């Protein structure tokens, strides 16, 4: 359950190309799980920027002196994040969270690889701790365009069996992309699950790699959102449900973490013809009105509820 609170900035600091913002946000930290995110207002009380900015939760501390604290990582990408970067200690920020579905944890202590693209690495550190508590081997792969966009290399090293780093310009680690080194990591650790957060292209490549090795993947997407709470319908993606049917699902409430093999990555940004309710689907329904039954079931399946039950069960 999410809450809306007036958070107070505790600290903001530069880390490479990024900013790490810590805030006291009572009620958010206490309920957050790895993979959850927060949605933050930017520009102050009379801001002309109405839409909330979504950030995955980097760290939480439930025992902060002033109440539960939440840390986020971001880069300045426009006037909204520029405003956020200018906050100082004691400034007030309107925060909603924790939001979205968290990463699902394996029931068995299996080896896992955590893959972060740029500041997409942020939610992986608390995940790594949870995995290690369950006896899972954790290997990290961090990638970015340049060295100053690699986030959390030291931290990753401290809590993992191994860490591989790739940069596109070769300024740190190997020159290339995370998926260039990923097969080697998987083979060495005999990994069973890949956890990833980063740009859409990287997630697609990670999901493909998982498929090739016949292993599970959990991908946290960074889709543009207006509200973050499930009412605006702007952040939809084509995702396959348990019944094999594709639907346009909201990445804020049904994600941001999806099973990699369920997202139709190459069709993100489109509405595939076989999606329930697409123009082509509706045409087929109308055509069949006089010639037989509907082409597919009209009922909406409970795609997510099983996952959530499983997630909460495994997390508890």
């Amino acid at each position, binding site marked *: *359950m*999410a*809450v*809306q609170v007036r958070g107070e900035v505790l600290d903001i600091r530069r880390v490479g190309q990024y900013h790490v913002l810590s805030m006291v946000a009572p009620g958010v930290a206490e309920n957050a799980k790895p993979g959850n995110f927060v949605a933050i*207002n930017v520009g102050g009380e009379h801001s*002309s*920027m*109405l*839409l*909330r900015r979504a950030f995955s939760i980097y760290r939480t501390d439930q025992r902060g002196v002033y109440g539960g604290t939440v840390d986020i990582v971001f880069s300045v990408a426009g006037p909204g994040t520029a405003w956020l970067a200018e906050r100082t200690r004691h400034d007030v920020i*309107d925060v*909603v969270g924790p939001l979205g579905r968290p990463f699902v944890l394996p029931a068995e202590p299996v080896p896992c690889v955590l893959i972060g693209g740029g500041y997409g690495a942020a939610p992986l550190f608390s995940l790594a701790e949870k995995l290690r508590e369950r006896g899972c081997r954790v290997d990290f792969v961090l990638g970015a365009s340049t060295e100053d966009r690699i986030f959390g290399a030291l931290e990753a090293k401290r809590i993992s069996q191994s860490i591989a780093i790739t940069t596109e310009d070769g300024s740190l680690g190997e020159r290339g992309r995370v998926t260039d080194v990923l097969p080697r990591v998987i083979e060495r650790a005999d990994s069973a699950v890949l956890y990833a957060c980063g740009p859409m292209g990287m997630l697609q490549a990670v999901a493909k790699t998982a498929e090739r090795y016949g292993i599970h993947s959990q991908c946290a997407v960074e*889709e*543009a959102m*207006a*509200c973050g*709470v*499930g*009412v*605006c*319908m*702007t*952040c*939809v*993606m084509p995702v396959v449900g348990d019944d094999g049917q594709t*639907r*346009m699902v909201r990445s804020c*409430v049904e994600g941001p973490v999806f099973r990699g093999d369920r997202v139709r990555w190459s069709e*993100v*940004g*489109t*509405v595939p013809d076989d*999606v*329930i*309710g*697409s*123009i082509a*689907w*509706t045409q087929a*329904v109308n055509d069949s009105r006089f010639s037989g039954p509907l082409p597919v079931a*009209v*009922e*909406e399946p409970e795609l997510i509820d099983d996952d959530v039950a499983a997630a909460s069960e495994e997390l508890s």
Partner: protein
Amino acid sequence: MTSLRLTVKTNESDPLPEIDMSTHLGLLDLKNPILTASGCAAAGRELDQFFDITTLGGIVTKSVMQNPRSGRPTPRMAETPSGMLNSIGLQGPGIDSFIEKDLAWLSERGATTVVSIAGGSVEEFARVAGKLRLAEGVSGIEVNISCPNVESRGEVFACDPVAAAEVITAVRRNTAPNIPVLAKLSPDVTDIVAVAQAVVAAGADGLSMINTTLGMVINTETMRPALAGITGGLSGPAIRPMAVRCVWQVHQAMPEVPILGMGGIRTGLDALEFILAGASAVSVGTTIFHDPTAPARIRDELTRAIAERGFETLIDAIGYAHREPDVELAPTGPAFVEFEQALDDDQADVDL
């Protein structure tokens, strides 16, 4: 009605003034004038974690059509100054699933529900209304004849008085007589009063004003339209003056027709503008994305604002901005001299 009396701004934590905030839209009685706007609150469930949705005047649900609908590709939104552009394309579960799940939940929860319906044809509107007639928990119908994100952009029903009236006639015929039918109008017309008169003549019990206005953003990095749907509906405080103008014009022409006003309401004073212009109730929309508790906050802010101005009931404030110029309060100076001259010339009703 007591005379205008402004008091000092009260503190947020003070108890709410005990004044009668109830209102009605035709036969629909509302405990207070704050509703959610269609398409900005889904079917209420998501917002219920932030505030008790049953404390609102009502929930106006996202427009539902006959069949499930996937909507448009992404990107579906772009932020604009004090507003946003959206191109959702009426994504929804279809009327059967809506009744079985969403409406059932709202009914169980005890919310006052106004169901927004949409259709690609007069027949579809009629069918959807017919299904709702058999369903439990419908307090009103809002007929979305003005969504700009449909295949035939610019050819929305609400842009043509004849087409708009046909839809309303069909919905009215398929709806129980005790359930009010509200026609949701588009501001993208030359004469909104003409469309309003046509739908009222066709049987609309009230009017919802306004839907989004068609807009466009070009991404200067990609140098292409920012939305996959190219154009989208502009909403938020950016369009509020346009919405207030529409409410004003229609209330002036037809003061007896109830209006549900919406368009960029962000505060209680914004809501008050609509009430003073002639709205009997208001819907809060895009602001929910910014502030999920906004409907409850605006309800309380409006209650204080109404009391601070000396009104004893909300209903006394409806259309109050249309009142005759008050001679006692008229300013002195040149404007006042002109006003007196106008009175002398027996032209007191010309624009002053």
